[in-house]
């Protein structure tokens, strides 16, 4: 008996904790968008545009790495829209039948070399990264930006010996902005977000490591009509304008 009471009490604790993170539910006035971390600034802006155009509607965001978001949706997290940083992670959700309709590609992102703003090692080409005195930081192969890096290495025949393989593109960028490393490979959008703190060195071979961003309405959406409207905004002209300003190319 005592055990049962204890278990019940602990479930109450769990319920209260969970309750903190879920907002009051008025299904008609709210959509929840799960979006890749690299979309934070652009989607936040598009979200407020959407709220302006649809008075009374709220757009809530959950930004994280695409694989994390896929895992959360697979485990039943309530979401209406999912925007992924690569097609592979979207494909995972399509395979489990959680996507309604077909995903729409809305942007692409390419790699660029970044160096501390003074560019002390005078990096100018991708091949410069392989020089022995250059400390280069990249994304680890399992992460989308890491697989793009591998694709570029394969295409150019230049093999990098990085001093660190980070789990997130933001950690690569951070090693450059703090001057720990001489060069890194990040997305064009990350480099433009970092502004003057880094020197961005575009290279022609980056074309082989293009990441395509798909967006889709989810099967479990409680408000598919509004979710579709948000998707249309992102993939339409208004979305293109905001995304292009941040450095995303058209699909």
């Amino acid at each position: 008996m005592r055990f049962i009471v204890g278990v019940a009490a602990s479930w109450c604790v769990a319920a209260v904790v969970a309750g903190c993170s879920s907002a009051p539910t008025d299904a008609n006035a709210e959509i929840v968008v799960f979006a890749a971390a690299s979309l934070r600034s652009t989607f936040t802006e598009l979200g407020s545009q959407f709220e302006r155009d649809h008075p009374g509607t709220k757009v809530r965001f959950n930004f994280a790495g695409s694989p994390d978001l896929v895992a959360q949706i697979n485990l039943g997290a309530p979401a209406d829209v999912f925007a992924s940083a690569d097609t592979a992670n979207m494909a995972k959700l399509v395979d489990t039948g959680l996507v309604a309709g077909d995903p729409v590609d809305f942007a692409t992102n390419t790699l660029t070399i970044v160096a501390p703003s003074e560019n002390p090692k005078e990096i100018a080409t991708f091949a410069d990264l392989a020089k022995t005195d250059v400390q280069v930081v990249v994304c680890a192969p399992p992460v989308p930006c890491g697989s793009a890096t591998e694709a570029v290495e394969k295409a150019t025949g230049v093999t990098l010996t990085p001093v660190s393989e980070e789990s997130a593109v933001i950690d690569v960028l951070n090693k450059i902005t703090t001057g720990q490393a001489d060069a890194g490979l990040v997305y064009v959008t990350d480099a433009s977000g970092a502004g003057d703190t880094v020197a961005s060195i575009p290279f022609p071979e980056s074309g082989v490591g293009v990441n395509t961003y798909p967006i889709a309405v989810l099967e479990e959406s409680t408000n598919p009509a509004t979710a579709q409207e948000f998707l249309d905004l992102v993939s339409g002209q208004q979305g293109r304008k905001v995304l292009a300003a941040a450095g995303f190319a058209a699909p």
Partner: protein
Amino acid sequence: MSNERRTDRLVQVGLPRWIYVPALAGAVFVITPLVAILLRIDWKNFIALISSESSRAALALSLKTATASTAVCVLVGVPMALVLARGGFRGLSVLRALVLLPLVLPPVVGGIALLYTFGRQGLLGHQLDVLGVRIAFSTTAVVLAQSFVSLPFLVLSLEGALRSTGSGYDHIAATLGARPTTVLRTVTLPLVLPGLISGAVLAFARALGEFGATLTFAGSLQGVTRTLPLEIYLQRETDSDAALALSLLLIVVAAAIVVASASRRLAGPL
């Protein structure tokens, strides 16, 4: 409670029964997530998952760096605890608060602080760079990060032991003509040995689990800076089965350490 029990059954002070309800709820809250991991483990491939090349490299690196940081902690932590417990100068309490700060800091803040100290453009990093010492992206950086976060555990644990032991025997030894170093070596330290051991064990366990400061400060490269927690974080992106298997491995190692130190403590004062 045990003192009361010795005198007479009638005066035994029991716990109010209701206290078991929140206590049990708390225990369930802590234990359920561990059970959840156990239930999700892919047992068929468990051995293969934890013995892959990257996993073995991560485990070896973790054990190596945690041992090194524990050694660093003992080397500087024992003198620090002695000064904090027995030293007599003004500002001691402020000093104590400062050196124990890493205990309450988020590890990522510790990592950032280390970055601006030992990093290439940090406070000391520039001088070290001139001398040809590169700490960034090296195993040394991992040991520094782990030592930074686990040092307070050893200091706190040992200082507590020193205070509860008191300095009575030290005084007697000194009265009998022993020099301070002799007193320290033959009386003070042997008396607090259990506290020192449990402090070292805690520091080792904390170093083993260190993630945030390492990620921020040391980077992540197989065999050099990618410890077990960083490997778990990376595997989670693509192979959740491997991440779960490695998580269990880390839990088992940590639990073994905690249990070993707990049984030592229960065994008695020495």
